[in-house]
């Protein structure tokens, strides 16, 4: 089996306990942002720290990507005959931030605002060394309410 590699370790860390998103927390006002940045858009302060964001949340908004995105920048399948639609949404991580992410579900009848979601990974492509490059996604929760 090939090794999994993150699309970008500075935003998505593959830990032994599963994937984690790397965000920012403002030490002054407590506001969170994803990905990490050097200043707070809420209080305008710059006393911020990197944090690993939570992995469970609720679906806040969603759509289905119905056509292949352009490459570059897209690293996944762009052949119209092989492309499969995928969900995209904002997942609200309690007490932190709403993160935009791919969804593993692409059937509009199975997506509902407010449903519980868990962080997971989806494959994108092979990297130059033949490893499986992955990015983050949320899937409908198997653990009940977030």
């Amino acid at each position: 089996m090939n090794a999994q590699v993150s699309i970008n370790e500075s935003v998505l860390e593959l830990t032994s306990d599963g994937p984690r998103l790397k965000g920012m927390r403002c030490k002054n006002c407590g506001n969170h942002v994803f990905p990490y940045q050097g200043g707070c858009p809420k209080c305008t302060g710059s006393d911020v720290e990197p944090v690993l964001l939570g992995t469970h949340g609720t679906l806040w908004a969603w759509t289905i990507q119905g056509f292949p995105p352009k490459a570059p920048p897209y690293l996944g399948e762009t052949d119209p005959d092989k492309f499969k639609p995928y969900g995209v949404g904002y997942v609200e991580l309690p007490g932190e931030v709403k993160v935009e992410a791919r969804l593993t579900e692409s059937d509009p009848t199975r997506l509902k605002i407010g449903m519980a979601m868990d962080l997971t990974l989806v494959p994108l492509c092979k990297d130059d060394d033949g490893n499986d490059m992955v990015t983050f996604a949320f899937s409908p929760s198997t653990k009940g309410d977030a």
Partner: protein
Amino acid sequence: MSEVAIVGIGMHEFGRHEGVSGMEQGAIAVRRACADAGVEWKDIQFAFGGSSAAGAPDTMVSQLGLTGLQFINVQNGCATGGSALFSAYNTIMSGAYDLGIAIGFDKHERGAFRVETKAREGRDWYGGSGMALTTQFFGMKINRYMQENNISQRSLARVAAKAMRNGSMNPMAWRRKALTEEEVLQSQMLSYPLTQYMFCSPGEGGVALILARADQAHKYTKNPIYLQSAVVRSRRFGSFEVLAPSLSLEYGEGPTVDASKAAFEQAGIGPKDIDLAQLQDTESGAEVMHMAENGFCEHGEQESMLEKGETEIGGRFPVNTDGGCLANGEPVGASGLRQVYENVLQLRGDAGPRQVPNDPKVAYTHVYGAPGISGVTILSR
């Protein structure tokens, strides 16, 4: 009384134009605007030019004539045209010059906008992951809005069908074939709940507007149109914007609400005083949401307004009389100025078969786009 008037307008047809550069389309719009105002290029004292993908606007002086005028380029996302107009308006307001021009043009590749972003380090993970599409934002925003405000997919189809109907009466429009609501609903699902014909396409075109001090306007035209306000606003904390990898937990109003309020304040009037409006319709849902965000109705009221045809050309409050972005496409640098061009035609009474009846006197434009920016103008006779 406003101190700035639009005294000349020029446009290059929107659409696809093989073998004509975006800048040439801008230059053609400039010549047409000069002809409309009865001036020559050498009479123009200053210019603000905007384009996002078709080259540095100030280089067009080599086509138009090297007169040495002050020419400043503006680049401000989807509000590029609006920002050029805002800058020209304020240049005249300041007293620095008496006669100037705002120019916008563009030429984009086919298909959805390609958005490449620079990560702090490493690979472009945002676009690389299959996000960073403006179409996704519009799908997500209207999908949530429809649920919160009881808007049906039929309403989205009504907006698109109206746009194509209006576009069919506009010789400058790209899409001039009327489409039925069924054809709109049955076209390919691009970003749920939005289908192909509910979206505008990036395109090509150019627009130029000549502005003068209001007290000198009659030297150039018998029909000056006065610019009562020109406002551009960026987003505040808590708003839901295009191309945002994360959003705050707080959920507040966006830049459209802010720009609209500021524009009404500047003009000293309110939404009830507006006779017609051109509202950003990147897709059908955007027009629906922007009707409320600009203060023209309550959230949710759009459903019955569309059902009753109130936003049709002959309706109570006509919206996007030239077919909007849906029928004209979106050459980013020119799009906001296209809206103003249409309102000038309507207020002059020169809009031909799509003329709004009953002698409209006050008209409104609104652009919205990446990365969360809105531009509003209010024009009057």
